[in-house]
């Protein structure tokens, strides 16, 4: 067995950022800031190129790379393998692209930042690449933990602010508890199958119908990753972390980290559990659709109730997590394709929105809707980018999410579950309406002023106060480039069809197992996808119109009557900002999911 050049890119996509991260730590005392910026950005761009090359190469056949050259013996995995398919590779590419953009954005964003920031960002990048590319359950856990440790430290960066540390503590405790659930689930699977390789686990589990152990393993792994994936009731850490983390870090959290949690659930479901579940899959599907819809709707209404932009965008991410879970829950290739395209487009657009938030924070030192009322009019380019992003979230063509929504609606229509698409469209309208409302008030001065204090006089230390042209350019360039990429991807027919094809391969367990264990890497069949029906875009326009209505209603101070508002206020009060509650909710979630899955057996 010899590996070609492209194969070697798989471990290098992890090793290169790790080596650069290690090198930057001692160099931090000797290098000027600009040099550290340049090294880190160059490394992230190199990883982007490597992951893109891997993704393109994997469209012909999956790329299987065994660390240490330990190829399987008699269909038993000996070592740790990376299995790159277009979906995993694509996610790694997205992660690397967003890290590159966030690093460019941070050149001028931070007034002062140690070079340790770059070390942490590169370790974070390596972890996300490893997480997306690995084909081994315990290795997945290792990268999950590295991702976590880097993310906690990045959240706590503004050490003078106690809120930042408190947010990081909530984040660290809930996510660690989630990680331990995952590891318990992996342990159960290992005890049953004697394997850590998903392809092998799937093959062994398929030999008999799923019993309670298999269901509990699925439960623990799902709940653990749903903590990262911000699915209710495991999402509570997310808005705390987003509210306090520096903007470039929020970009990565909302743009790709949360979605990686959902990717892991889908990947493990398809490779390990799908052959064994049989009729029980219906119960899993009902559960996922149920929590997906609750998360989408509740996340959207929570976003609507926020006047702090970062929290608003964070809840919008929660809402989108619910939508992704709905798409994954179709448990077919069409759903996986919709989810993949949706995640890619959302990542690009949400990142751009967070960068706009960062520019506003940088300029006015506030994130409060009332305090910022009308102030955004002095930032015309940021305003345009923000509105494009807000409407893009609702699915305005030609921004990327429009194509994803068309796939999404079509896949539910084919399963005669159009009502789910309708509910998700409503959630989407509320969610985008919240983002638009903030934009109308802050960037256009439309509507009544939201309650809120004056702009703060004290300067938060996160950002520099100069307003030079170069500063605007380095912050605006990535904010403009990312949505532009999403337009390019959505308009490129080869990309959309490529995603559809990749999703069929993603959901093909026998092909995955054969490629991994038997080393039978067959070129994947090329099938022509159906052309997207242009009339399908009409729904997107309707959602945009709905979002505009919600936005205007909000901007002019329309409020639901008290009794109708009560349930929303109750949900909002659950977000107490303290991890002791979050662990209790998490336990409730595991118990509720578990009782449903066991009883529905």
């Amino acid at each position, binding site marked *: 067995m010899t590996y070609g050049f492209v194969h070697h890119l798989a471990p290098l996509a992890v090793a290169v950022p790790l080596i650069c991260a290690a090198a930057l730590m001692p160099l931090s005392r000797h290098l000027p800031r600009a040099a550290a910026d340049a090294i880190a950005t160059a490394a992230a761009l190199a990883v982007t190129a490597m992951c893109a090359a891997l993704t393109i190469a994997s469209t012909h056949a999956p790329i299987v790379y065994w660390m240490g050259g330990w190829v399987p013996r008699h269909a038993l995995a000996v070592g740790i393998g990376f299995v790159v398919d277009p979906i995993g590779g694509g996610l790694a590419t997205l992660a690397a692209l967003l890290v590159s953009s966030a690093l460019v954005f941070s050149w001028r964003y931070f007034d002062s930042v140690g070079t340790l920031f770059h070390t942490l960002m590169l370790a974070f990048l390596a972890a996300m690449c490893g997480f997306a590319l690995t084909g081994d359950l315990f290795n997945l856990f290792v990268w999950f933990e590295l991702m976590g440790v880097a993310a906690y430290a990045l959240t706590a960066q503004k050490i003078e602010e*106690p*809120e930042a540390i*408190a947010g990081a503590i909530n984040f660290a405790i809930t996510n660690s508890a989630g990680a331990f659930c995952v590891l318990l689930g992996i342990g159960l699977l290992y005890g049953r199958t004697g394997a*850590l390789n998903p392809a092998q686990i799937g093959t062994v589990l398929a030999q008999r119908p799923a019993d309670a152990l298999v269901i509990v393993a699925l439960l623990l792994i799902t709940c653990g990753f749903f903590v990262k994936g911000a699915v209710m009731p495991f999402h509570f850490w997310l808005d705390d972390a987003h509210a306090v983390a520096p903007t470039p870090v929020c970009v990565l959290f909302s743009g790709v980290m949360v979605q990686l949690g959902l990717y892991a659930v889908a990947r493990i479901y398809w490779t390990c559990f799908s052959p064994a579940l049989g009729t029980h899959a219906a119960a899993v599907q009902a559960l996922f659709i149920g929590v997906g819809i609750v998360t989408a709707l509740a996340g959207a209404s929570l976003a609507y109730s926020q006047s702090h932009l970062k929290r608003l965008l964070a809840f919008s991410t929660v809402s989108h997590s619910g939508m992704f879970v709905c798409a994954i829950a179709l448990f077919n290739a069409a759903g996986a394709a919709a989810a993949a395209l949706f995640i890619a487009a959302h990542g690009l657009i949400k990142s751009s929105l967070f960068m706009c938030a960062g520019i506003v924070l940088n300029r006015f030192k506030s994130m409060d809707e009332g305090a910022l009322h009308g102030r955004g009019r002095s930032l015309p380019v940021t305003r345009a980018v923000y509105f494009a992003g807000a409407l893009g979230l609702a699915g305005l063509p030609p921004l990327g999410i429009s194509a994803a929504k068309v796939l999404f609606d079509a896949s539910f229509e084919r399963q005669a579950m159009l009502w789910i698409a309708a509910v998700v469209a409503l959630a989407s309208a509320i969610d985008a309406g919240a983002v638009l409302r903030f934009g109308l008030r802050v960037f256009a001065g439309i509507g009544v002023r939201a309650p809120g204090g004056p702009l703060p006089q004290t300067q938060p230390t996160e950002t520099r106060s100069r307003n030079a042209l170069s500063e605007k350019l380095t912050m605006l360039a990535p904010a403009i480039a990312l949505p532009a990429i999403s337009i390019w991807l959505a308009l490129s027919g080869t990309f959309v069809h490529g995603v559809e094809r990749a999703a069929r391969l993603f959901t093909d367990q026998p092909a995955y197992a054969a490629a991994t264990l038997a080393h039978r890497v067959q070129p994947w069949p090329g099938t022509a996808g159906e052309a997207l029906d242009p009339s399908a875009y009409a729904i997107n326009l309707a959602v945009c119109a709905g979002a505009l209505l919600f936005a205007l209603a909000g901007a002019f101070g329309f409020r639901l009557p008290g009794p109708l508002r009560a349930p929303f206020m109750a949900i909002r009060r659950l977000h107490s900002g303290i991890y002791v509650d979050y662990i209790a909710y998490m336990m409730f979630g595991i118990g509720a999911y578990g009782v449903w899955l066991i009883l529905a057996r």
Partner: protein
Amino acid sequence: MSGALLYLPYAVAVWLFLAGAYGLVRSRHLVHSVLCLAVVQSSTYVLLLSIGFLAKAGAPIFNPPQVPPGSRSVDPVVQALTLTDIVVGATVTSLLLAMTIQIHRRKGTVDPHHLRLTRG
């Protein structure tokens, strides 16, 4: 009865998981919470090593004349996994304790109930 006893190790893992979580929910001190989290994590060590145990078998370290095949040994894989897991535990603990010191310096409290984040 002895059959049920053979499930005691796994039950201990479940017990540690739940006991640690209970401690987290009832915690009034950040250091207490960090240690409870460590107890939750120790459930994973116990589960993994119990799964890999083989009765009347030695450690997976061989002496030259007695090289496998033929010699019984417990599972080396779960031991490697647990080693990694212990490092993870130590790192999360060290990060959280550093945050505890920092938050006490800024806010003068280590009671999680006094650290509620303000809502926007």
